[in-house]
């Protein structure tokens, strides 16, 4: 189900922890699986459970806890808008609404062209730049409707920011 390369990476993570602590390697294993597969299907999660020798439910627990794991297929760019306190007080609702209108999708949805998925996430530790969002490995802060439009244009233009 996973490539040799991913399996080797997972094995390397697993080896970092004592024999009876397979669960410790779970976060990394799920990240590796998601990077390869794009999202975590039930089948992938069960596969990872077998790989680590832990109950499948423990994998579901972790995968559903962290917003960084995707349990559904997502678009090419994942717009993760922070909705926690600092960002909320600085207008994250308006940011979300603006994006939702521009993209024509609601929270957790993906645009028809498969380019964007809109998500709300918890505090990303960048409160000083509130309101903020994350796309791929990049943080964008002090968001305004204008800066959002510019960002969307850049991403539509093929900027590769994701994974």
């Amino acid at each position, binding site marked *: 189900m996973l490539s040799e390369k991913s399996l080797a990476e997972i094995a390397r993570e697993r080896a970092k922890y004592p024999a009876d602590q397979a669960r410790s390697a779970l976060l990394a294993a799920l990240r590796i699986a998601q990077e390869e597969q794009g999202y975590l299907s039930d089948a992938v999660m069960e596969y990872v459970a077998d790989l680590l020798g832990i*109950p499948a*439910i*423990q994998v*579901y*627990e972790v995968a*559903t*806890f962290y917003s960084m794991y995707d349990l559904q297929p997502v678009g090419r760019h994942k717009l993760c808008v922070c909705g926690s306190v600092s960002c909320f007080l600085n207008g994250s609702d308006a940011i979300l609404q603006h994006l939702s209108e521009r993209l024509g999708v609601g929270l957790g949805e993906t645009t028809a062209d498969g380019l964007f998925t809109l998500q709300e996430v918890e505090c990303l530790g960048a409160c000083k730049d509130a309101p903020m969002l994350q796309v791929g490995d990049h943080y964008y802060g002090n968001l305004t409707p204008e800066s959002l439009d510019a960002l969307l244009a850049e991403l539509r233009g093929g900027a590769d920011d994701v994974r």
Partner: protein
Amino acid sequence: MPHIEIDGQAIEVAPGTTIMEAAESLGIYIPFFCYHPKLSVAANCRMCLVDVEKAPKPLPACATPVADGMKVATASRKAKMAQQGVLEFLLINHPLDCPICDQGGECPLQDITMGFANPHSHYTEEKRVVEDKNIGPLIATEMTRCIQCTRCVRFGQEIGGIMELGATGRGEHMAIGTYVAKAVQSELSGNMIDLCPVGALTSKPFRYKARSWELKHTPGLCPHCSTGCNTDVQSLGREVLRVLPRANQAVNEDWICDKGRYAYTGLQAEDRVTQPLLRVDGVWCEASWAEALDAALSGLEQMIARHGAGRLAGLISAQSSNEELLLFQALLRGLGSPHVDHRLRQQDFRADAAMPTYPALNMALEDLEREPVVLLCHAFPRQQQPLTNHRLRKSVLQGGKVIAIDSLRRDFNYPVTQLVADAGADLALYEALCSQLSGHAEKADAVPLAHVASDLLAADNPLILIGSALLHHPQAAAMIAQIETLAELAGGRVGWLAQEANSAGAWLSGCVPHRLPGGHTAPAPGLPADALWDADMRGFVLLGTEPGVDAMRGAAALAALQKAEFVLSITQFAGEAKQYADVILPMAAFAEGSGSFVNNEGRLQSFRAAVKMPGEARPAWKILRVLGDGLKLSGFQFNELSEVTAAWQHAIGDYALDVPPFHAFPTLEPVPEPMSADGLCRLGDWSIYQGDPLVRRAAPLAQPAVAKMHPDQAKALALRGDSVEISSHCGKISLPLVLDVRIPMGTVWVPAGYNETAALGATYATCAVTMATLPAVAASA
């Protein structure tokens, strides 16, 4: 040791004691939801907040260890405010649907709210709703009611040993469930219902049947395995509505298994008999007791007059009470028949003389959880004795080691070193282990075996437990003899895992052909159960058993019963009996009768009727007494059950709790090797929910019969598709096929206890597996 004070009462407790435990020992009640003495401390509900002097904030009593000089107030203003606050939060998302909730009336959330909450809530917003998932036929879910105490999750992880429920999602979206819809598998799953402090998990078969305060509680005993769990039988009018555990820390602690919990649903089976039945010219007619007893007596008398009592045999279920067992053998022996048995599943009786007085564990169940090294010999207690298994699981969690020898790899719920015999070569495996132990075999050639041998030798007096399934092997006698040698070589001691609720009682009461009550040798031993089918018996008396599915060779048993001239079946269910009986006498079923059982430890426990018998059914002991009286046998003059109990005690005497595990072995005549060169060895045992007439009829527990085979074996036989035909020298059946790597090569697993599989005959016989012939239409397509 720390001195502390709770609500002004001083107490000295062991270091590490929590405030909750200290309060409990003072009899001070602190409300709680997530705390449970048998589970790890999660401290997530916060209901147990108490006011501790000098602590700035209230502390959770369940998770706070005492410190010397601590002063705790459980009902100060601060404590009360904390309790009210927590309850207000817990109720924010709780639906408050008590009128339609099965937990109502036995709900800690309801009770604690009544006792500790502020009657007003600030919350006016919407409540969240959690989607339900179907988790099988036993547990009904209503997850919107869940307060996320995680008791059910911790139960699965810590007690059940398979984690099936978990907490998925986060914050407001956290939900307890299986995530992907699937039925929970744990044989202890029903205990989660008892643990759930709200109506999120309730019993599906009991759903909407009654309110808890309407139910009558009767202390009962589980009749489904030799653990002898104590139960609380709850009934309304004439109907048993549910069975819950009755805490007994020495036996079942706070639990029962799903067999014990749900088997009662079988009481409603269609073929329950409530009226004596007579076969008149091949047609079944209802009869009065007088007519039926007349027919039974004259049937027996005529049969004996024609063929002699040596052609009469009696078979009784080991779920029968001591009283019934004693009277049953007295009836048969009084009539002059030596053929009395309860061991319908056994096929090798050569070691009968060597068997112990009764199958005794030879230790207390509680001590089992402290055993450092245990060797299980063809025992899978997870299915056969689920709560005995729980003790073994605890020993492993505390660092003990369990080793299992069996014909296939078993799905234990704790780590077990497993030695699996080659197809049919079970005896050889014991022999090989013995030669390893005696140092005769080369160490290098069989590594796992050598490891096991050195583990056993290193252990101080390891415990060797003989499983009930071992007795089902065609070479059981030789295997038992090997185990005696093995125990000597390993310097270990031996205990038996008894199969049924009253297997011990059946041996003690003399329901075996070679021993009388009290274990005395019978002067003229009769034939054991399996031999009766080929012995041209002309008359049978059956009590509580259905040999067609209860016997090792079901089809042979049916044929022998059908051929017999007279068959009297004293039974709860008529379905099978109607195929061969001449007279059917309806007897009391589970929860309808009283009596006593001896469990695996030798513990004598009694139970009494919870509900009235339906229709004309009577307690089996009364039926036996009337028969004995009618046949003018001595020793049947009883009016009350207590008199029979006294007679039992008199006949059995003070039996020992620890008995020698073996008597002297007779010379064992060789039997043919089970496996011939070609063909597969048919493995199989009674499935967990097929073991007795009642549990077989419990619809919520029903699992269809499937054959299992190693995927490589299926490939080697070019089996495709999901249905196969299995044939042995005595019959042919077809079953769905499931691939399972735990089944060794060269074997196929076919469960016993099903009508569908009875035709195949005894286990461990050679059989052939082919693809099922497709129906004509599909084949031509």
